[in-house]
């Protein structure tokens, strides 16, 4: 059974533009989650999802050298720490993005259940709300 999530996606955009989108606080806040973020090793970041009922996400930037970005991912109220890794590669016609989210195996089952329950309650709703919000912005623009 796999315990790592891997995504691969091609964007028809220059590598620097994609890198800025995933490392710049203002840009992260626009497409991802409102953030306090600096692409500096050791920086303690936070992602604060819209609405008070959503658990904020925090963590530490572990690596931020073009074009690899790694940070720990901790959902507040739960001690569980997982790792999110972004790697960009310049390819013909744009940029290939590799995303990896791992670390669930380091934890006790009970913690995982607890974490998941907290997601079920809050996070799914937050996500739906957020994508709606983003769609509105796109359509308004």
């Amino acid at each position, binding site marked *: *059974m*796999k*315990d790592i*999530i891997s*995504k691969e*996606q091609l*964007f028809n*955009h220059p590598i620097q*533009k*994609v890198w800025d*989108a*995933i490392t710049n606080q203002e*840009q992260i806040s*626009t*497409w*991802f989650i409102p953030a306090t973020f600096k692409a500096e090793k050791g920086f303690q970041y936070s992602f604060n999802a819209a609405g008070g009922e959503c658990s904020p996400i925090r963590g530490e930037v572990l690596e931020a050298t073009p074009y690899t970005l790694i940070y720990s991912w901790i959902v507040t109220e739960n001690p569980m720490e997982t790792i999110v890794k972004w790697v960009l590669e310049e390819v013909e016609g744009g940029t290939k*993005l590799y*995303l990896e*989210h791992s670390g*669930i*195996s*380091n*934890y*006790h*089952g*009970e913690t*995982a*259940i607890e*974490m*998941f329950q907290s*997601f079920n309650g809050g*996070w*799914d709703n937050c*996500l739906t709300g957020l*994508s709606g919000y*983003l769609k509105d912005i*796109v359509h308004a*623009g």
Partner: protein
Amino acid sequence: MQDNITKILKAISDPTRRELFHALVIAATALPITQVSAQFNITRQGITKHLKTLENAGLITITTSGRERFCKAEAAPLQEVKNWVSFYEKFWDTKLDQLGDFLDQKE
């Protein structure tokens, strides 16, 4: 009993244990160990060892009733890993779509 996901993954990394566990999941009820070992071409001792590993990972429970010992699959621990993975699969798909839209808008 420690209910560690690493243990779960290790327990099911062995093909024989996977088969054992699978057989118990299919059975959906407690089976006597003698009946289980009859299905597999391994010594009774070998079966017991594999069952212990599965039990330690929380994947099965072993109970004694009279002179017979019974084992039963507990699928909940596997579900935890699966839930986590499927939640974040969806999460990142949504997010990467949003990233794509964002980049397209930002010409």
